[in-house]
């Protein structure tokens, strides 16, 4: 990508972000009722999107060739274990990342 394409990509993301933040204030002036469908999607969409994002992060992991996604699986296990144990977001992220870096640099 060229620098101009970088700027256009960043602008597209910024525009999308601003749209999600400003739209409710433009479409639903305070006091007016939000459609039920919109309320429903708002409640259930986040759960599905977080799943999509985890899959997106792992999209280039190949299960068929070595190391068969093993470093990712171990590191995700560490993140989950740390998080269920301490419930400290930063600790879980840092611990899992350090574990993954050690695995791909030293073990696999």
């Amino acid at each position, binding site marked *: 990508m060229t620098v101009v394409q970088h700027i256009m990509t960043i602008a*597209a993301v910024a525009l999308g972000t601003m749209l999600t933040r400003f739209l409710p204030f433009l479409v639903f002036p305070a006091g007016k009722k939000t459609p039920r469908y919109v309320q429903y999607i708002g409640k259930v969409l986040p759960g599905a999107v977080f799943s999509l994002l985890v899959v997106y992060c792992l999209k280039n992991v190949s299960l068929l060739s070595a190391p068969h996604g093993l470093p990712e699986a171990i590191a995700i296990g560490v993140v989950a274990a740390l998080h269920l144990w301490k419930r400290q977001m930063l600790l879980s992220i840092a611990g899992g990342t350090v574990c993954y870096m050690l695995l791909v640099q030293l073990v696999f």
Partner: protein
Amino acid sequence: MKRRALKAAFPHTIPIMAGFLFLGMTYGIYMGSLGFSFVYPMCMAMIIYAGSMEFVTANLLIGAFNPVQAFLMTLMINARHLFYGLAMLEKYKIPGLKRLYLIFGMSDETFSVNCTAQPPEGVDRSWFMFFVTLLNQSYWVLGATIGGLFGMVLNFNTEGLDFVMTAMFVVIFIENWLKEKDHTSALTGLGISVMCLVLFGADGFIIPAMGCILLALTLLRPRLEKGGEAA
């Protein structure tokens, strides 16, 4: 008036300062490891200001040029902000330019403070919310800039650092999983995403996956809404 609001706002942002400086720096270092100058994370922190989306954008910037996909992905990932907006319609009903900045800077963390924190007696509410928003974004921009500078000069082996994004989304996923009573949506999202990844491949699965998720959730509405009311 502004000084008092700033003083009242600051303590509410301290926990966020720690998180934003840490994640912001990691994001900056990550951008550096991808070969970007610190100007990128700094500007992206100022203009986009949506943490998880900035990590995703870093990935988009090293892939093929596709601004439409970038735009659509942003809409899906940041769709939750729509509902923060709906929740803040009344609170953010204040005159002037402050309002525009409050809406622009409504990240997850800023939303949670402004939605729940009560400014002390005699402190102007709109300035209080303004400073909460401004301080939080400053931490993020500062973290991203410092991280970006580090990323350019530090010479340690950053292989595997990109896992920070995976770890972050896994944590968010777990948090959401523990909070929700019905896992249908999370499991639907997981199933559809994996299926689309297999069918369309790593470079083309996002948009079909988003479309299928929206469709599936719409079709599941009778079931999920009934469950939601019982919960």
